[in-house]
């Protein structure tokens, strides 16, 4: 047992770091709120990585994966977090991609995987429905077979960044008489430009637009867009959720966040001294670092398990819970650090005439409140933290 990197791994880190320094788009800088980003901003790094062949590291090599070991992938995410990079969105790379190469047919692979790799095609996820929430299986959207097509009707919600999406993957009920709610669900790919697809942004409490309501009204989808078998969609959905959770700990990004927090607290003053020298505040930062160290080793142990052949199991629920708790506490501490300047509403300040003669607080305070508000979502999405505890209780503790 050791935590050292081999010389090969060290060399890999150098290579990766050099590549990022050379190629990461300078204008993206150290982004605060994602909602400031345009579609092009979101895709910029993805496209560069696509050309380099590094956009889908975790995929099997035959589909364009890099064949990196989990340790290399860990190094990769650390190095990207160093510059707070805008990474390829998960909807194609970590969600529908693995479903397509695992359960899709050759035609689907050929048609869809290249666009995901290159970053040319933007995917969105049509899982949740109003009134369903964490109880995903109770979904009501139907897909009715009509000749060579499915006709889809229903409403999805929380479709993240669907306003930019080219394609979406949707869970639809294809058998309304199934014995259990989990049965009779199919996994269908939908061209978001199809007639009858309507996307309406939802304003969030931080003032931004990140998710949408999506209506499907008599949307005709060719049957070849069904992935895997009809009525077996739940299996693919669960497969996908486990994949979704495994990256959710966000250790590398939180480490970068703690560094930033230290910078802020070094700038802020309390009783004439830097806030970071205040024992109360410093103690909270140390506690966060300790919990983050614990999470990091726990994730590495899980990765080692994967390396030893075990797939992402219910252990990933622990990573989701602890990872999101830490992300939320990080934003809480940042909010505390900026003091009174938590109050200005970023959208109100930012939409000013651009003159900066009379600034509203230091730059780092601009997003503090909005980020805190925004991050409340993390304990809700991807299966709420209560659901994750139910999963651990059942799958690991056998209760």
């Amino acid at each position: 047992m050791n935590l050292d990197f081999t010389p090969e791994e060290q060399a890999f880190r150098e290579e990766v770091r050099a590549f990022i320094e050379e190629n990461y788009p300078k204008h993206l800088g150290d982004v605060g709120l994602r909602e400031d980003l345009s579609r092009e901003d979101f895709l910029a790094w993805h496209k560069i990585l696509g050309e380099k062949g590094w956009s889908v590291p975790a995929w099997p090599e035959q589909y364009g994966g890099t064949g990196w070991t989990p340790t290399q992938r860990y190094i990769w995410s650390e190095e990207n977090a160093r510059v707070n990079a805008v990474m390829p969105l998960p909807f194609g790379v970590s969600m529908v991609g693995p479903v397509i190469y695992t359960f899709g047919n050759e035609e689907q692979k050929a048609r869809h995987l290249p666009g995901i790799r290159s970053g040319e095609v933007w995917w969105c996820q049509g899982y949740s429905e109003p009134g369903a929430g964490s109880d995903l299986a109770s979904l009501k959207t139907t897909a009715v077979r009509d000749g060579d097509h499915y006709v889809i009707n229903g409403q999805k919600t929380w479709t993240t960044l669907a306003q930019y999406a080219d394609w979406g993957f949707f869970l639809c009920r294809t058998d309304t008489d199934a014995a259990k709610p989990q049965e009779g669900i199919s996994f269908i790919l939908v061209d978001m430009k199809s007639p009858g697809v309507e996307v309406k942004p939802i304003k969030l409490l931080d003032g931004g637009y990140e998710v949408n309501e999506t209506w499907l009204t008599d949307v005709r989808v060719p049957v070849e867009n069904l992935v895997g078998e009809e009525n077996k969609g739940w299996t693919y959905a669960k497969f996908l959720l486990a994949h979704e959770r495994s990256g959710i700990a966000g250790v590398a990004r939180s480490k970068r966040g703690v560094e930033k927090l230290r910078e802020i607290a070094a700038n802020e003053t309390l009783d004439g001294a830097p806030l970071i020298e205040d024992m109360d505040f410093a103690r909270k930062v140390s506690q966060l670092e300790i919990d983050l160290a614990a999470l990091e080793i726990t994730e590495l142990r899980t990765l080692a398990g994967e390396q030893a052949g075990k797939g992402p199991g219910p252990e990933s629920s622990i990573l989701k819970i602890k990872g999101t708790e830490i992300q939320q506490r990080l934003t809480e501490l940042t909010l505390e650090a900026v003091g009174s300047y938590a109050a200005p509403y970023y959208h109100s300040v930012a939409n000013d005439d651009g003159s900066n003669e009379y600034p509203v607080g230091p730059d780092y305070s601009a997003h503090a409140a909005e980020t805190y508000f925004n991050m409340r979502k993390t304990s809700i999405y991807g299966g709420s933290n209560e659901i994750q505890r139910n999963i651990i209780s059942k799958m690991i503790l056998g209760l």
Partner: protein
Amino acid sequence: MDFNFTEEQDMVRDGLSRLVRELYDWETRRKAIESEAGWRPEIWAQLAELGILGMPFSEEVGGFGGGAIDRMIVMEEFGKGLVVEPFVPTVVCAGGFLKHAGSEAQREEHLSAIIDGSRVFAFAYAEPRGRYDYADLETTAKKDSDGYVLNGHKAVVIGAPWASHLVVTARTGGDRRDREGVSVFIVDKSADGIVTRDYETVDGRRASEVYFENVSVPADALIGEEGAALPLIEQVTDEAIAAHCAEACGAMKVAHAMTLEYSKQRKQFGVPIGKFQVLQHRMVDMYTAYETAVSLTYLATIKLDAGEKERKRAASSAKVGVGQSARFIGQEAVQIHGGNGVTDEYAIGHYFKRLTIFENEFGNVDHHLKRHVSLA
């Protein structure tokens, strides 16, 4: 010992409760805070008419002789409706300074205008580097022949865009952070040399950065004794703390009730989510957090007129305990609302945001826990 309210107090509560219900419904409020002005002067006029703006002042100056308990009742109702109008800056802060330390002439000039609603105040005390220390001032007031000249930058002055006048803290002597040398002034916001940058706040109010660039004010702008204002500021801000705690209690009460209601309606896995024991116990803990917050708010309110140390301890206790309850209830209310909790459309997120900013006002939990330690 007595925990009952008088009949008059019950009447005030009922009246305000009706006002909030009838004139402050959610859609109307939303339109108002998104409007150019961001508030409703007509609500202010209503409050004046109902005597709410004059409540804490003596009958001699046209007020109604109310006390701390009355203010608590008002603020609790305001909290329930997330009322944005600047009662605390105008009535509690400016009114408090005038009541405690204003000269006859100053009271004459300002109090009746506060009571009839014609003059609105903001309290400019915070500074970019001062955090929660009222004596950590870089703003200066230099004496000259005609009065004082103010220079400095006041941060996040709540309600300033709506105000005709400002109460400003400034250093007239001593070094930054000295307890001595702090003074308080009342300044007409239209005075030459005042530059404001106005903006919205995340909890639906308006605020300004206020820059003083050689602003001349007359000698009688000074409230109380020159250089000796810190104890006065501490008294007034403890009163503001008690008022905001009461507001937070009102907001928490509604947030808890909304969450309870939501949990009874919202179904998951075929049953209302309020049937899940984990959520039940969490809502119990929210309820307990609310009740303890109310108790500490009572304590802070009742002790406002006690000895200095007792008053400060009670105010800090409340700011700590109510602040902790506010964070817990706000976060959990959003969590139990699930995805809907993080939308702009659902009211719960707005209660959460107000409670978040409340935590910061006049010192956060860490600050007041330390202050409590120093008063042991």
